[in-house]
């Protein structure tokens, strides 16, 4: 490890005497200092003016949005540039050992503020009462593991964790494998499967209302496709989203619909990276197509399958919008999930303690995944 009390040795440091040294020392000249300071001051004034415009209620939307775009996009570069220039003003002894922290610093500060601090804060809130005034010990956790709807939510979330990645990855893998054999139209077919990925959860819920919608007799005709089919077959229309426990599965279908495209795109890239020779050799040796798939393709792309599955499991664990946006009550329908419970207790039922306790449980549930991911990362590092 490099220490700061001796001259810094590194490929980027100028030689002690002669040649490059002078050019490096020019960086710290007074003229440069003045330039940097002036630029910083001008930038600060511009920032403040811009914030003034953005908060001005009379400013036109178009103006506000333009200012926001310039400020947001230009601002971040300017911050790094000024900091880098400022480092050049320091004595060359410390300069190069300080510079890495200028590059990493903003990331660390933002992460501390937006992820690390909230974790600690939530743990504290979970030990306090509904308005976060008095300590209540583990009462909120007792609630999490005894409340009827919470237990139901834990069971349902477990179902999401297993079924959504399973369905998404299998369909995605099957589709990627088959599409790889198409002579024409592979790109179009893949784009159409990927398309739902670009739709918001809120948009997707509305979209699927056009499939699941139910209207009782006398309240207009049924505009949901499933009930359209039922009527076409001469059956009675069904309240699909109140049909326990199958309604959970119907909601999972929405997420599978949205995320299969991601799995498919990534797996397809992995399949294409398998050398042709391996597959050809297996075929020449008389392997059937199914054997080629299971014995060669799947083992070769297993690391990619694992990454995609991990991603989908973590997403399924955090699922909330799909359940939350449904028009009828998740409690009555038995479709509650953990993240949805958390938002409901925090925002709608205004009980900080219980909401925080649910969040902590969710976090703890993800920790094994995190440890496993980090271990995998370390293995990768070892290979590099």
């Amino acid at each position: 490890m490099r220490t700061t009390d001796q001259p810094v040795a590194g490929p980027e440091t100028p030689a002690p005497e002669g040649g490059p040294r002078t050019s490096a020392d020019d960086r710290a000249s007074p003229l440069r200092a003045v330039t940097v300071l002036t630029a910083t001051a001008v930038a600060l004034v511009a920032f403040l003016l811009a914030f003034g415009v953005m908060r001005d209620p009379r400013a036109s939307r178009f103006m506000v949005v333009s200012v926001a775009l310039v400020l947001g996009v230009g601002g971040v570069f300017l911050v790094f540039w000024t900091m880098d220039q400022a480092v050049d003003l320091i004595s060359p002894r410390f300069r190069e050992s300080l510079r890495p922290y200028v590059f990493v610093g903003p990331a660390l500060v933002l992460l501390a503020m937006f992820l690390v601090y909230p974790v600690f804060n939530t743990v504290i809130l979970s030990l306090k009462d509904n308005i976060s005034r008095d300590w209540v010990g583990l009462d909120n956790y007792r609630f999490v593991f005894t409340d009827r709807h919470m237990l139901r939510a834990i069971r349902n979330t477990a179902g999401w964790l297993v079924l959504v990645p399973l369905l998404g990855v299998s369909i995605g893998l099957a589709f990627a494998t088959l599409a790889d054999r198409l002579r024409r139209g592979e790109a179009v077919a893949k784009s159409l499967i990927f398309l739902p990925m670009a739709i918001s959860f809120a948009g997707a819920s509305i979209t699927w209302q056009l499939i699941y919608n139910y209207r009782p007799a006398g309240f207009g005709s049924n505009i949901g496709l499933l009930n359209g089919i039922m009527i076409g077959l001469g059956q009675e229309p069904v309240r699909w989203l109140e049909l326990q426990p199958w309604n959970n599965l119907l909601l999972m279908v929405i997420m599978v619909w949205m995320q299969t495209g991601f799995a498919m795109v990534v797996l397809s890239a992995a399949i294409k990276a398998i050398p042709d020779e391996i597959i050809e050799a297996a075929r020449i040796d008389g392997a059937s197509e199914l054997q080629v798939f299971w014995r060669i393709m799947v083992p070769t792309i297993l690391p990619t399958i694992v990454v995609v599955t991990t991603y989908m499991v973590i997403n399924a664990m955090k699922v909330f919008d799909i359940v939350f946006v449904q028009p009828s009550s998740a409690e009555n329908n038995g479709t509650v999930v953990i993240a949805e419970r958390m938002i409901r207790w925090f925002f709608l039922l205004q009980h900080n303690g219980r909401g925080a306790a649910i969040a902590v449980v969710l976090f703890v549930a993800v920790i094994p995944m995190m440890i496993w991911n980090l271990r995998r990362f370390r293995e990768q590092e070892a290979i590099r």
Partner: protein
Amino acid sequence: MSAPAIPIPEGVVAHAPGELRRGGWFVRITIAAIVLLWSIPTLGVLITSLRPESRVNTSGWWTVFANPFRTGEWTLENYRLAIEAQGFGNAFLNSLAVAIPATVIPITIASFAAYAFSWMEFRGRRIMFVAVVGLMVVPLQMALIPILRLFTQGVTLFGLRVFPDLELNRTFLGIWLAHTGFGLPLATYLLYNYIASLPSSIIESAKIDGADHFTIFWRLIIPLSVPALAAFAIFQFMWVWNDLLVAYVLLGGAGENRVLTVALRNLVGSRGVNWHLLTSAAFISMSLPLLVFFSLQKYFVRGLTAGAVKG
């Protein structure tokens, strides 16, 4: 005629034109079936958004296939209503003002950090990197409440104000920073994988030519990393554009700054049965991410798989 010495051609003839392998009927029909199934919901939205209100409520959207050219079957009126009367035009602009900086800022910050993690030597490099990547699994939901309190009240510890109230609640800056914080772990991880795999000879020779870190980063690393940057940019943009939760909590459900997803949710809440408006609004909100994805999808795949694609 001598017996063939090499048995291979026979084997190839026996297996090669198999239905599966060269894309026979089985493959084509399966693909077509899945694609059709996957497109039905989107098709439903598109068709409903183009039908007049009276038709939407009296017949299912699939009935248009029976007689698509009936008079009064199609209209653009729903879109006009959504954009003007429901304020979806403003909400669209707001979504832009949130999503573009909330994509650029985390990418910039993450690529500076990824560069430092891969090409600079400093104390605590490994620990910092593992910590950054490890934060990937903190559920977003967990972070929202403390952040909201941070924005509105600051932090007081034992009656002492240790962090000021920044008045960031309901501002664009507040939501940019929040999305940046949430997106940074994944961004740093993906960009590190890419930037660290660039050949070290390029960087060494730039150093010999006298380039400092900032120049190497800006002139060399960034142009070389375009595929990875674009892949993450698409990902982050779609995620921010489609986000309802963060926008709802930090920008608020009403007011000047509300974004598309929030406006959409309000439409469901206030008049859950206005399908003609709901679907046209939903389609407006989908349009930009679809455009972004289709114009940049080449980068998306290439960047996520970092050069592993054979072409």
